[in-house]
Protein backbone atom coordinates (compact mmCIF):
# COMPACT_ATOMS: atom_id res chain seq x y z
CA UNK A 1 0.00 0.00 0.00
CA UNK A 2 2.73 2.48 0.80
CA UNK A 3 4.43 2.28 -2.62
CA UNK A 4 1.14 3.16 -4.27
CA UNK A 5 0.54 5.97 -1.81
CA UNK A 6 3.94 7.41 -2.60
CA UNK A 7 3.30 7.04 -6.33
CA UNK A 8 0.06 8.97 -5.97
CA UNK A 9 1.79 11.67 -3.93
CA UNK A 10 4.54 12.00 -6.54
CA UNK A 11 1.97 12.23 -9.30
CA UNK A 12 0.10 14.96 -7.46
CA UNK A 13 3.20 17.00 -6.78
CA UNK A 14 4.42 16.61 -10.34
CA UNK A 15 1.06 17.76 -11.70
CA UNK A 16 0.94 20.66 -9.30
CA UNK A 17 4.35 21.94 -10.22
CA UNK A 18 3.48 21.73 -13.85
CA UNK A 19 0.27 23.70 -13.65
CA UNK A 20 1.01 25.63 -10.44
CA UNK A 21 -2.64 26.69 -10.29
CA UNK A 22 -3.42 25.41 -6.85
CA UNK A 23 -0.29 26.51 -5.12
CA UNK A 24 -0.44 29.89 -6.73
CA UNK A 25 -3.98 30.53 -5.51
CA UNK A 26 -3.12 29.33 -2.04
CA UNK A 27 -0.08 31.55 -1.75
CA UNK A 28 -1.92 34.59 -3.07
CA UNK A 29 -4.80 33.88 -0.72
CA UNK A 30 -2.45 33.68 2.25
CA UNK A 31 -0.90 36.98 1.19
CA UNK A 32 -4.33 38.60 1.11
CA UNK A 33 -5.29 37.23 4.49
CA UNK A 34 -2.13 38.56 6.09
CA UNK A 35 -2.62 41.87 4.40
CA UNK A 36 -6.16 42.03 5.72
CA UNK A 37 -4.94 41.29 9.21
CA UNK A 38 -2.31 43.96 8.92
CA UNK A 39 -4.87 46.60 8.19
CA UNK A 40 -7.24 45.17 10.75
CA UNK A 41 -4.64 45.61 13.45
CA UNK A 42 -3.52 49.04 12.33
CA UNK A 43 -5.26 50.80 15.17
CA UNK A 44 -4.07 48.32 17.75
CA UNK A 45 -0.49 48.69 16.63
CA UNK A 46 -0.64 52.44 16.60
CA UNK A 47 -2.03 52.62 20.09
CA UNK A 48 0.32 50.05 21.45
CA UNK A 49 2.69 51.26 24.10
CA UNK A 50 5.15 48.40 23.82
CA UNK A 51 8.80 49.20 23.70
CA UNK A 52 9.82 47.50 20.51
CA UNK A 53 8.07 46.47 17.34
CA UNK A 54 8.73 42.84 18.16
CA UNK A 55 7.09 43.14 21.52
CA UNK A 56 3.94 44.72 20.28
CA UNK A 57 3.51 42.29 17.41
CA UNK A 58 4.43 39.17 19.38
CA UNK A 59 0.98 38.30 20.71
CA UNK A 60 -0.41 38.53 17.19
CA UNK A 61 2.01 36.29 15.37
CA UNK A 62 0.81 32.85 16.31
CA UNK A 63 -2.95 33.39 15.96
CA UNK A 64 -2.67 35.23 12.66
CA UNK A 65 -0.29 32.67 11.20
CA UNK A 66 -2.47 29.71 12.13
CA UNK A 67 -5.67 31.28 10.88
CA UNK A 68 -3.87 31.95 7.62
CA UNK A 69 -2.51 28.40 7.43
CA UNK A 70 -5.97 27.01 7.99
CA UNK A 71 -7.92 29.04 5.49
CA UNK A 72 -5.31 28.98 2.77
CA UNK A 73 -4.78 25.30 3.48
CA UNK A 74 -8.48 24.49 3.21
CA UNK A 75 -8.43 25.88 -0.30
CA UNK A 76 -5.79 23.39 -1.34
CA UNK A 77 -7.24 20.43 0.52
CA UNK A 78 -10.55 20.72 -1.21
CA UNK A 79 -9.12 21.31 -4.66
CA UNK A 80 -7.01 18.18 -4.42
CA UNK A 81 -10.00 15.87 -4.26
CA UNK A 82 -12.27 18.08 -6.31
CA UNK A 83 -9.99 17.79 -9.32
CA UNK A 84 -9.83 14.01 -9.09
CA UNK A 85 -13.54 13.67 -8.70
CA UNK A 86 -14.60 16.17 -11.35
CA UNK A 87 -12.23 14.83 -13.98
CA UNK A 88 -13.19 11.27 -13.22
CA UNK A 89 -9.67 10.12 -12.35
CA UNK A 90 -10.75 9.14 -8.85
CA UNK A 91 -12.53 6.14 -10.38
CA UNK A 92 -9.31 5.27 -12.16
CA UNK A 93 -7.54 5.16 -8.81
CA UNK A 94 -10.32 3.12 -7.28
CA UNK A 95 -9.94 0.51 -10.02
CA UNK A 96 -6.36 -0.24 -9.04
CA UNK A 97 -6.00 -3.56 -7.22
CA UNK A 98 -4.87 -2.21 -3.87
CA UNK A 99 -6.14 -1.17 -0.48
CA UNK A 100 -7.96 2.05 -1.34
CA UNK A 101 -6.65 3.71 1.80
CA UNK A 102 -3.50 4.18 -0.25
CA UNK A 103 -5.37 6.99 -2.00
CA UNK A 104 -5.94 8.63 1.37
CA UNK A 105 -2.33 8.32 2.44
CA UNK A 106 -1.06 9.49 -0.93
CA UNK A 107 -3.24 12.58 -0.72
CA UNK A 108 -2.11 13.25 2.84
CA UNK A 109 1.51 13.20 1.72
CA UNK A 110 1.02 15.48 -1.27
CA UNK A 111 -1.26 17.87 0.62
CA UNK A 112 1.22 18.06 3.48
CA UNK A 113 4.03 18.94 1.14
CA UNK A 114 2.09 21.61 -0.71
CA UNK A 115 0.53 23.20 2.35
CA UNK A 116 3.91 23.34 4.02
CA UNK A 117 5.09 25.49 1.13
CA UNK A 118 2.16 27.81 1.68
CA UNK A 119 2.93 27.92 5.41
CA UNK A 120 6.48 28.98 4.73
CA UNK A 121 5.26 31.65 2.35
CA UNK A 122 2.83 32.92 4.99
CA UNK A 123 5.59 33.11 7.56
CA UNK A 124 7.61 35.21 5.15
CA UNK A 125 4.66 37.44 4.30
CA UNK A 126 3.94 38.04 7.94
CA UNK A 127 7.48 39.04 8.61
CA UNK A 128 7.26 41.53 5.74
CA UNK A 129 3.91 43.07 6.59
CA UNK A 130 4.40 43.26 10.33
CA UNK A 131 8.13 43.95 10.30
CA UNK A 132 8.60 41.06 12.65
CA UNK A 133 11.86 39.26 13.20
CA UNK A 134 11.79 35.59 14.13
CA UNK A 135 15.47 35.42 14.99
CA UNK A 136 16.57 32.62 17.19
CA UNK A 137 13.11 31.17 17.44
CA UNK A 138 12.65 30.23 13.82
CA UNK A 139 13.64 26.60 14.26
CA UNK A 140 11.38 25.70 17.19
CA UNK A 141 8.60 27.62 15.48
CA UNK A 142 8.99 25.54 12.33
CA UNK A 143 9.01 22.37 14.33
CA UNK A 144 5.63 23.27 15.77
CA UNK A 145 4.30 24.34 12.38
CA UNK A 146 5.36 20.99 10.94
CA UNK A 147 3.59 19.02 13.61
CA UNK A 148 0.45 21.12 13.64
CA UNK A 149 0.18 21.23 9.88
CA UNK A 150 0.51 17.47 9.70
CA UNK A 151 -2.43 16.96 12.06
CA UNK A 152 -4.41 19.53 10.13
CA UNK A 153 -3.73 17.84 6.80
CA UNK A 154 -4.54 14.39 8.14
CA UNK A 155 -8.05 15.26 9.29
CA UNK A 156 -8.52 17.86 6.57
CA UNK A 157 -7.88 15.32 3.81
CA UNK A 158 -10.51 12.97 5.21
CA UNK A 159 -13.09 15.72 5.62
CA UNK A 160 -12.37 17.13 2.18
CA UNK A 161 -13.06 13.70 0.69
CA UNK A 162 -16.45 13.83 2.40
CA UNK A 163 -17.38 17.36 1.36
CA UNK A 164 -16.35 16.89 -2.24
CA UNK A 165 -19.33 14.59 -2.69
CA UNK A 166 -21.96 17.01 -1.45
CA UNK A 167 -23.41 20.22 -2.73
CA UNK A 168 -21.92 23.52 -1.65
CA UNK A 169 -18.64 21.80 -1.02
CA UNK A 170 -16.52 24.81 -0.08
CA UNK A 171 -18.79 26.08 2.65
CA UNK A 172 -19.64 22.58 3.81
CA UNK A 173 -15.97 21.79 4.11
CA UNK A 174 -15.42 24.74 6.43
CA UNK A 175 -18.52 23.89 8.47
CA UNK A 176 -17.40 20.31 8.90
CA UNK A 177 -13.72 20.88 9.53
CA UNK A 178 -13.51 23.87 11.84
CA UNK A 179 -15.43 22.51 14.85
CA UNK A 180 -13.30 19.39 14.70
CA UNK A 181 -9.92 21.11 14.66
CA UNK A 182 -10.70 24.07 16.90
CA UNK A 183 -9.55 22.48 20.11
CA UNK A 184 -7.61 19.56 18.80
CA UNK A 185 -5.27 21.20 16.32
CA UNK A 186 -5.68 24.96 16.31
CA UNK A 187 -5.53 25.70 20.00
CA UNK A 188 -2.53 23.52 20.86
CA UNK A 189 -0.70 24.73 17.75
CA UNK A 190 -1.26 28.38 18.47
CA UNK A 191 -0.21 27.96 22.07
CA UNK A 192 2.87 25.97 21.23
CA UNK A 193 3.89 28.42 18.50
CA UNK A 194 3.50 31.36 20.87
CA UNK A 195 5.65 29.63 23.42
CA UNK A 196 8.21 28.77 20.78
CA UNK A 197 8.41 32.41 19.75
CA UNK A 198 9.06 33.42 23.33
CA UNK A 199 11.89 30.95 23.42
CA UNK A 200 9.96 28.71 25.78
CA UNK A 201 9.35 25.73 23.53
CA UNK A 202 10.12 23.41 26.45
CA UNK A 203 7.04 24.65 28.24
CA UNK A 204 4.94 23.48 25.34
CA UNK A 205 5.51 19.78 25.91
CA UNK A 206 1.89 19.13 26.75
CA UNK A 207 0.65 20.85 23.62
CA UNK A 208 3.18 19.08 21.45
CA UNK A 209 2.21 15.74 22.89
CA UNK A 210 -1.43 16.54 22.27
CA UNK A 211 -0.71 17.42 18.66
CA UNK A 212 1.23 14.22 18.19
CA UNK A 213 -1.49 12.13 19.80
CA UNK A 214 -4.26 13.71 17.77
CA UNK A 215 -2.31 13.29 14.55
CA UNK A 216 -2.06 9.58 15.27
CA UNK A 217 -5.74 9.30 16.17
CA UNK A 218 -6.75 11.21 13.04
CA UNK A 219 -4.62 9.01 10.82
CA UNK A 220 -6.24 5.93 12.32
CA UNK A 221 -9.66 7.48 11.72
CA UNK A 222 -8.72 8.29 8.14
CA UNK A 223 -7.51 4.78 7.49
CA UNK A 224 -10.67 3.24 8.91
CA UNK A 225 -13.24 5.57 7.43
CA UNK A 226 -11.86 6.42 4.00
CA UNK A 227 -13.21 3.34 2.27
CA UNK A 228 -16.72 4.18 3.46
CA UNK A 229 -16.46 7.61 1.93
CA UNK A 230 -15.38 6.29 -1.45
CA UNK A 231 -17.79 3.48 -2.15
CA UNK A 232 -21.02 4.10 -3.94
Amino acid sequence: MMPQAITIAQKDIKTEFRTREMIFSMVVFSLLIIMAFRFAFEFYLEESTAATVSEEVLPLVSPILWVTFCFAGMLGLLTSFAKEKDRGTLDGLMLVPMDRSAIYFGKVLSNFFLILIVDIASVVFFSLFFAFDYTGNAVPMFAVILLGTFGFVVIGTLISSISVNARGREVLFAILLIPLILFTILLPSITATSLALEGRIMDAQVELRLLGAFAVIYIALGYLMFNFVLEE
Partner: protein
Amino acid sequence: MKLPKQFDFVILAMAFIFILLTIYMALIWRPLDTNFEAPYAQKIFYFHVPVAWVSYLAFGVVFMGSAQFLRTGQRHWDTIAFASAEIGVLFATFVILTGPVWGAAEWKVYWRWEDTKLTITFILWLIYIAYLVLRGGTESEDKARLAAVFGIIGFICVPLSFISSRIWYSIHPNVVATSSGSLSTESGMGLAAGVVAFTFLYMFMLRKRLLIFELNEKVQELKERIGGI
Protein backbone atom coordinates in the same frame (compact mmCIF):
# COMPACT_ATOMS: atom_id res chain seq x y z
CA MET B 1 -39.44 -0.67 15.67
CA LYS B 2 -42.93 -1.98 15.86
CA LEU B 3 -44.06 -1.18 19.37
CA PRO B 4 -47.71 -0.72 20.19
CA LYS B 5 -49.26 2.72 20.26
CA GLN B 6 -49.82 2.39 23.97
CA PHE B 7 -46.09 2.38 24.44
CA ASP B 8 -45.82 5.89 23.04
CA PHE B 9 -48.58 7.04 25.30
CA VAL B 10 -46.86 5.55 28.30
CA ILE B 11 -43.62 7.31 27.44
CA LEU B 12 -45.39 10.61 26.98
CA ALA B 13 -47.20 10.16 30.25
CA MET B 14 -43.99 9.38 32.09
CA ALA B 15 -42.30 12.39 30.56
CA PHE B 16 -45.19 14.60 31.55
CA ILE B 17 -45.33 13.32 35.09
CA PHE B 18 -41.63 13.60 35.66
CA ILE B 19 -41.43 17.07 34.19
CA LEU B 20 -44.12 18.17 36.55
CA LEU B 21 -42.23 16.49 39.34
CA THR B 22 -39.06 18.27 38.36
CA ILE B 23 -40.80 21.60 38.26
CA TYR B 24 -42.28 20.95 41.66
CA MET B 25 -39.00 19.84 43.13
CA ALA B 26 -37.06 22.66 41.61
CA LEU B 27 -39.38 25.50 42.38
CA ILE B 28 -41.26 24.49 45.46
CA TRP B 29 -39.67 21.63 47.26
CA ARG B 30 -36.07 22.78 47.22
CA PRO B 31 -35.37 25.75 49.39
CA LEU B 32 -33.48 28.68 47.97
CA ASP B 33 -29.88 27.69 47.84
CA THR B 34 -28.07 30.54 49.52
CA ASN B 35 -24.65 29.28 48.48
CA PHE B 36 -25.28 30.88 45.16
CA GLU B 37 -25.31 34.54 44.25
CA ALA B 38 -28.65 34.35 42.51
CA PRO B 39 -30.70 31.70 44.24
CA TYR B 40 -33.73 32.06 42.03
CA ALA B 41 -31.73 31.72 38.86
CA GLN B 42 -30.03 28.67 40.26
CA LYS B 43 -33.27 26.79 39.78
CA ILE B 44 -32.44 26.63 36.11
CA PHE B 45 -29.87 24.05 37.14
CA TYR B 46 -32.59 21.43 37.47
CA PHE B 47 -33.47 21.80 33.80
CA HIS B 48 -30.23 22.94 32.27
CA VAL B 49 -28.13 20.04 33.48
CA PRO B 50 -30.53 17.18 32.66
CA VAL B 51 -31.15 18.58 29.19
CA ALA B 52 -27.40 18.81 28.67
CA TRP B 53 -26.88 15.21 29.70
CA VAL B 54 -29.71 13.98 27.54
CA SER B 55 -28.27 15.91 24.59
CA TYR B 56 -25.00 14.03 25.12
CA LEU B 57 -27.04 10.84 25.16
CA ALA B 58 -28.69 11.86 21.90
CA PHE B 59 -25.31 12.43 20.29
CA GLY B 60 -24.14 9.10 21.58
CA VAL B 61 -27.10 7.55 19.79
CA VAL B 62 -26.06 9.37 16.61
CA PHE B 63 -22.64 7.79 16.94
CA MET B 64 -24.05 4.31 17.46
CA GLY B 65 -26.61 4.68 14.72
CA SER B 66 -23.92 5.84 12.30
CA ALA B 67 -21.61 2.98 13.20
CA GLN B 68 -24.38 0.40 12.82
CA PHE B 69 -25.48 1.91 9.53
CA LEU B 70 -21.98 1.66 8.09
CA ARG B 71 -21.62 -1.84 9.41
CA THR B 72 -24.93 -3.30 8.29
CA GLY B 73 -26.15 -0.96 5.57
CA GLN B 74 -29.67 -0.98 6.96
CA ARG B 75 -31.32 2.38 6.38
CA HIS B 76 -33.24 2.52 9.62
CA TRP B 77 -30.03 3.01 11.59
CA ASP B 78 -29.30 6.10 9.57
CA THR B 79 -32.83 7.36 10.22
CA ILE B 80 -32.37 6.87 13.95
CA ALA B 81 -29.08 8.75 13.82
CA PHE B 82 -30.61 11.60 11.87
CA ALA B 83 -33.63 11.96 14.15
CA SER B 84 -31.47 11.75 17.23
CA ALA B 85 -29.15 14.44 15.88
CA GLU B 86 -32.10 16.78 15.34
CA ILE B 87 -33.34 16.33 18.88
CA GLY B 88 -29.82 16.53 20.24
CA VAL B 89 -29.22 19.86 18.54
CA LEU B 90 -32.55 21.10 19.82
CA PHE B 91 -31.68 20.17 23.39
CA ALA B 92 -28.16 21.54 23.05
CA THR B 93 -29.61 24.83 21.84
CA PHE B 94 -31.72 24.94 24.96
CA VAL B 95 -28.61 24.32 27.05
CA ILE B 96 -26.67 27.05 25.29
CA LEU B 97 -29.52 29.51 25.72
CA THR B 98 -30.26 28.78 29.36
CA GLY B 99 -26.61 28.70 30.35
CA PRO B 100 -25.99 32.40 29.80
CA VAL B 101 -29.24 33.25 31.56
CA TRP B 102 -27.97 31.56 34.64
CA GLY B 103 -24.44 32.76 33.99
CA ALA B 104 -25.44 36.38 33.82
CA ALA B 105 -27.29 36.10 37.11
CA GLU B 106 -24.68 34.05 38.88
CA TRP B 107 -21.32 35.17 37.54
CA LYS B 108 -22.36 38.45 35.95
CA VAL B 109 -20.83 37.04 32.78
CA TYR B 110 -22.74 35.46 29.91
CA TRP B 111 -20.13 32.94 28.94
CA ARG B 112 -16.81 31.68 30.19
CA TRP B 113 -14.58 30.02 27.66
CA GLU B 114 -12.45 28.71 30.48
CA ASP B 115 -15.22 26.47 31.56
CA THR B 116 -14.58 23.24 29.72
CA LYS B 117 -18.16 22.11 29.89
CA LEU B 118 -19.31 25.19 28.06
CA THR B 119 -16.78 24.82 25.30
CA ILE B 120 -17.49 21.12 24.87
CA THR B 121 -21.20 21.66 24.60
CA PHE B 122 -20.59 24.44 22.13
CA ILE B 123 -18.31 22.31 19.99
CA LEU B 124 -20.78 19.44 20.12
CA TRP B 125 -23.51 21.77 19.04
CA LEU B 126 -21.45 23.00 16.09
CA ILE B 127 -20.45 19.50 15.07
CA TYR B 128 -23.97 18.18 15.01
CA ILE B 129 -25.31 21.21 13.22
CA ALA B 130 -22.64 20.43 10.65
CA TYR B 131 -23.90 16.84 10.63
CA LEU B 132 -27.41 18.06 9.90
CA VAL B 133 -26.19 20.35 7.13
CA LEU B 134 -24.32 17.44 5.56
CA ARG B 135 -27.21 15.03 5.90
CA GLY B 136 -29.51 17.54 4.28
CA GLY B 137 -32.97 16.21 4.23
CA THR B 138 -32.56 14.09 1.17
CA GLU B 139 -33.20 10.44 0.73
CA SER B 140 -29.87 9.92 -0.93
CA GLU B 141 -27.99 6.82 0.14
CA ASP B 142 -24.72 8.55 -0.47
CA LYS B 143 -25.55 11.49 1.77
CA ALA B 144 -26.57 9.11 4.52
CA ARG B 145 -23.29 7.26 4.28
CA LEU B 146 -21.16 10.41 4.30
CA ALA B 147 -23.12 11.80 7.23
CA ALA B 148 -22.62 8.54 9.10
CA VAL B 149 -18.87 8.79 8.62
CA PHE B 150 -18.96 12.34 9.90
CA GLY B 151 -21.20 11.32 12.79
CA ILE B 152 -18.51 8.94 13.92
CA ILE B 153 -15.63 11.37 13.41
CA GLY B 154 -17.50 14.14 15.19
CA PHE B 155 -18.27 12.04 18.21
CA ILE B 156 -14.67 10.94 18.55
CA CYS B 157 -13.46 14.51 18.32
CA VAL B 158 -15.51 15.60 21.29
CA PRO B 159 -13.68 13.73 24.04
CA LEU B 160 -10.48 14.70 22.25
CA SER B 161 -11.48 18.35 22.40
CA PHE B 162 -12.45 17.85 26.00
CA ILE B 163 -9.07 16.42 26.92
CA SER B 164 -7.33 19.16 25.05
CA SER B 165 -9.25 22.01 26.60
CA ARG B 166 -9.00 20.41 30.03
CA ILE B 167 -5.25 20.32 29.77
CA TRP B 168 -5.04 23.74 28.23
CA TYR B 169 -7.23 25.37 30.81
CA SER B 170 -5.63 23.67 33.73
CA ILE B 171 -2.30 25.13 32.77
CA HIS B 172 -3.57 28.63 32.36
CA PRO B 173 -4.86 29.61 35.78
CA ASN B 174 -8.01 31.49 34.96
CA VAL B 175 -10.23 28.69 36.08
CA VAL B 176 -12.84 29.38 38.64
CA ALA B 177 -14.80 26.56 40.20
CA THR B 178 -17.50 25.46 37.82
CA SER B 179 -21.18 25.07 38.40
CA SER B 180 -21.56 21.96 40.50
CA GLY B 181 -19.82 21.90 43.82
CA SER B 182 -20.91 19.19 46.19
CA LEU B 183 -24.47 18.09 45.77
CA SER B 184 -26.81 17.55 48.63
CA THR B 185 -28.98 14.47 48.32
CA GLU B 186 -32.11 16.52 47.86
CA SER B 187 -30.52 18.38 45.00
CA GLY B 188 -29.42 15.05 43.63
CA MET B 189 -32.98 13.81 43.72
CA GLY B 190 -34.24 16.87 41.93
CA LEU B 191 -31.56 16.40 39.34
CA ALA B 192 -32.38 12.73 38.93
CA ALA B 193 -36.02 13.57 38.43
CA GLY B 194 -35.01 16.00 35.74
CA VAL B 195 -32.81 13.46 33.99
CA VAL B 196 -35.56 10.86 33.98
CA ALA B 197 -38.05 13.41 32.75
CA PHE B 198 -36.01 14.61 29.83
CA THR B 199 -34.87 11.14 28.87
CA PHE B 200 -38.49 10.15 28.50
CA LEU B 201 -39.14 13.31 26.56
CA TYR B 202 -36.23 12.47 24.25
CA MET B 203 -37.54 8.96 23.71
CA PHE B 204 -40.99 10.26 22.93
CA MET B 205 -39.70 12.84 20.47
CA LEU B 206 -37.44 10.27 18.83
CA ARG B 207 -40.26 7.85 18.25
CA LYS B 208 -42.48 10.55 16.87
CA ARG B 209 -39.75 11.74 14.54
CA LEU B 210 -39.15 8.20 13.30
CA LEU B 211 -42.88 7.87 12.73
CA ILE B 212 -42.82 10.99 10.60
CA PHE B 213 -40.02 9.51 8.52
CA GLU B 214 -42.03 6.35 8.05
CA LEU B 215 -45.10 8.26 6.98
CA ASN B 216 -43.02 10.30 4.57
CA GLU B 217 -41.74 7.11 2.99
CA LYS B 218 -45.26 5.82 2.58
CA VAL B 219 -46.40 9.07 0.99
CA GLN B 220 -43.51 8.94 -1.47
CA GLU B 221 -44.35 5.36 -2.34
CA LEU B 222 -47.96 6.22 -2.98
CA LYS B 223 -47.00 9.20 -5.08
CA GLU B 224 -44.83 7.05 -7.25
CA ARG B 225 -47.53 4.48 -7.69
CA ILE B 226 -49.98 7.10 -8.82
CA GLY B 227 -47.39 8.42 -11.22
CA GLY B 228 -46.64 11.83 -9.81
CA ILE B 229 -43.13 13.01 -9.10
